[in-house]
């Protein structure tokens, strides 16, 4: 199912630019080229191809992500789409109102990274941790002890994270509206 594969590449990446899609395949190919790597769970065998790995990632993502995080991801995908459309328009149809293009584009990029930050804070916060966050902390491994504020970071509550998010978004959109002319 090639359609599923392409979504797998795009949506969890929620890439800001089309280049990331290319990187996904790079990652996957590199992962496939190092056979030791796939000591992972069930379906992933040692010599699985890039396609299989991507599919595996997609399945993992579907099963392990809580609903709220998926909504954030959908929002991020939407923002990435908007950003890409604006960028395409700029490339194809010229960048005449450059201020407007810039503020529109940076609004979507800025909102994207803010949402990504919110997602990180809420998934790492403890409650909504799927295999994603646990795997992340496990993978961090040796360097984890060095971060003094690892505990402090987990101390950020979901409400605080959301308030920060709103604060950041307000500033972002104020600047954008001011810049759009």
């Amino acid at each position, binding site marked *: 199912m090639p359609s599923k594969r392409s979504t797998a590449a795009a949506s969890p990446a929620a*890439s800001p630019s089309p280049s*990331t899609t290319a990187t996904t395949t790079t*990652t996957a190919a590199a992962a496939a080229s190092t056979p030791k790597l796939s000591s*992972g769970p069930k379906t992933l065998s040692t010599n699985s191809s890039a396609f299989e790995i991507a599919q595996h990632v997609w399945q993992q993502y579907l099963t392990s992500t809580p609903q709220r995080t998926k909504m954030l991801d959908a929002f991020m995908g939407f923002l990435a789409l908007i950003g890409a459309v604006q960028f395409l328009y700029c490339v194809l149809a010229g960048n005449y109102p450059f201020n407007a293009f810039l503020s529109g584009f940076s609004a979507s990029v*800025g909102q994207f990274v*803010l949402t990504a930050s919110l997602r*990180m804070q809420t998934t790492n916060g403890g409650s909504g941790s799927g295999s994603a966050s646990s795997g*992340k902390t496990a993978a961090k491994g040796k*360097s984890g002890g060095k971060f003094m504020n690892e505990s402090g*970071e987990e101390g950020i509550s979901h409400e605080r994270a959301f308030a920060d998010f709103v604060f950041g978004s307000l500033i972002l959109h104020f600047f954008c509206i001011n810049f759009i002319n």
Partner: protein
Amino acid sequence: MADSPVDALLKGSSGRTTRGMLRIIILAIIAAAAVSSRLFSVIRFESIIHEFDPWFNFRATKYLVQHGFHSFWDWFDDRTWHPLGRVTGGTLYPGLMVTSGVIYHILRFLTIPVDIRNICVLLAPAFSGLTAFAMYLLTCEMTVSPSAGLLAAAFMGITPGYISRSVAGSYDNEAIAIFLLVFTFYLWIKAVKNGSIMWGALTALFYGYMVSAWGGYVFITNLIPLHVFVLLCMGRYSPRLYISYTTWYALGTLASMQIPFVGFLPIRNSDHMSALGIFGLIQLVAFAEFVRGFIPGKQFQRLLTTMIILVAAVAFLGLVVLSASGVIAPWSGRFYSLWDTGYAKIHIPIIASVSEHQPTAWPAFFFDLNFLIWLFPAGVYMCFRELHDEHVFVIIYSVLASYFAGVMVRLMLTLTPIVCVAAAVALSTIIDTYVLTTPGPLPRAKSSAESSSDGLRSTRGAVVGITSYVSKAMITVSVAIYLLLFVAHCTWVTSNAYSSPSVVLASRLPDGSQFIIDDYREAYYWLRQNTPENAKIMSWWDYGYQIGGMADRPTLVDNNTWNNTHIATVGKAMSSREEVSYPILRQHDVDYVLVVFGGLLGYSGDDINKFLWMVRIAEGIWPDEVKERDYFTARGEYRVDDEAAPAMRNSLMYKMSYHNYHNLFQPGQAMDRVRGSRLPAEGPQLSTLEEAYTSENWIIRIYKVKDLDNLGRSHNNAVAFDRGQKRKRATKRKGPRVLRTE
């Protein structure tokens, strides 16, 4: 401010209010010391704006206060760069003016009527107090030792490297920019530590403020991405880093683009590309981390680094291609001159001609930083020992800033904060190690407070036990002596080197009393009173802002050196013969020409000493008409006396400087006290200009450009005709004089 350092301080079980109070009092005293040590110039001279650039800022502030913000934003200034004018509102960093405008209106609102000039004069000292506080916060993030923050604040408050740009009256962008620099870095460290959007957004806001205040914001723009990049390469990616960096970049870039002068630079200019590149990179890394959550593997670290290298290479290639194809503006000239110190001298004489762009002399480091400079490496070493994220920042900052400070004198300013941090860390470690448990001699009131507050700390830190009282006493006494010497040095440097307004000069009479030389203001006031409102004044660009500010007359060029050709035109007019210069003066509607001449007083910063720069800049545009070599004698000497090169003696600048000068002396005795040379007995003859005014000590000489002759003769002929009556007498006079000398 309920920040974590303050929190940490309040955590103690007993006497915590006392300690908190002490800290606040000490900080207040440091701020007071920082402010008061900058007031030398006000006390010694008066409340006056200093130097060159501050005069423009002052003029712009007055305009802002008078006409309101919107007309300031759209300000087209037709009184500078005649006949071009300057879109001032779009080509300045408005942060400084807006800050003082806001303060002015707040004070007015509180019904405190303060003159805008006093706000401008005292803005820099006031902000230096804030800088000391920001320094305290920044240093407290770096180390657990509570004394380090206070030490750093004290250092920052009085170190000459910072005072040099922030004495009362030096109303320049740096006055608020250093505070913003330090505070932005504090917020950045805070953001990296906490990984919250709020701190990142605050960093971005203060970064935006910084962008609006000083062109040096590029330093932050490159330093923060570099910090992130190094952390990434060290394998220290964390969501905190992603959150703080992306928030900072997305918001900060937008904020910086709000300033008209910066405009689209953040996406066009190569200076800003590293930040964009790191932004893309961290997205990739974050995505990789995200994927890693699903495919756990030991090889991932290697994969990640390969990916980083690959993408960095691709991005670098892309940058090179884009730069080469001209999509991205090339690096600005000032930036090139940072990497290649010889670059400016060859390609852009105008940048090289500015004295603050010269490379730093080695003694300047000691002069500006005193004993901090040798504590600095020790502090950096301490950072290496701990090496958390924030210590990496200190290390990168210190390496970069040391290099830049070596390249350009004015960038000493960016080095100073990090030197203060590092030195404070080093010194506080020494104090903690040696003084901690002793009730014995204490270095200073400040450190006594620190060590008393350290009493509880000793149980917690792994402090190396120094028990011998002899070594304790020795170290304590030597530290105390160094600190006292530092204070004495700072006070001395501030009062002697950095407190001169340079608009008003001071000298000492033989009996020790002070003698004020006020020629600049005298001459500018003469211009203001005796010339028509729209008389165009030509002078070398150094004096453009002062003429605009003090004399309120249009100028041809000023210190905002945006148009090299126009400056070169002035340079050509100054360095050519009268016959060449006069048409240039006429074409530019020049009414008066102003030169600065220090020969009588021995004032070395005069135009004859700057003359070679005029020649060089003019030569850059008209290499056929002006040649630097012609202004030297056959033996390559730069002389003004009998043996001066013909081009030199015929140049307008030479003629204006020495016009009638020989009449002050006995025949043949005319001396130039700056160059220490005897001038020719016969003074230069001016035919197209006439002397209009010469100030008391001859520092400023103003010449009026003659109108075209009534009878259509050339000026030379007219003057010759006027002299014609006297020619016989002149020859007669000449005869005996020759005899007399023989």
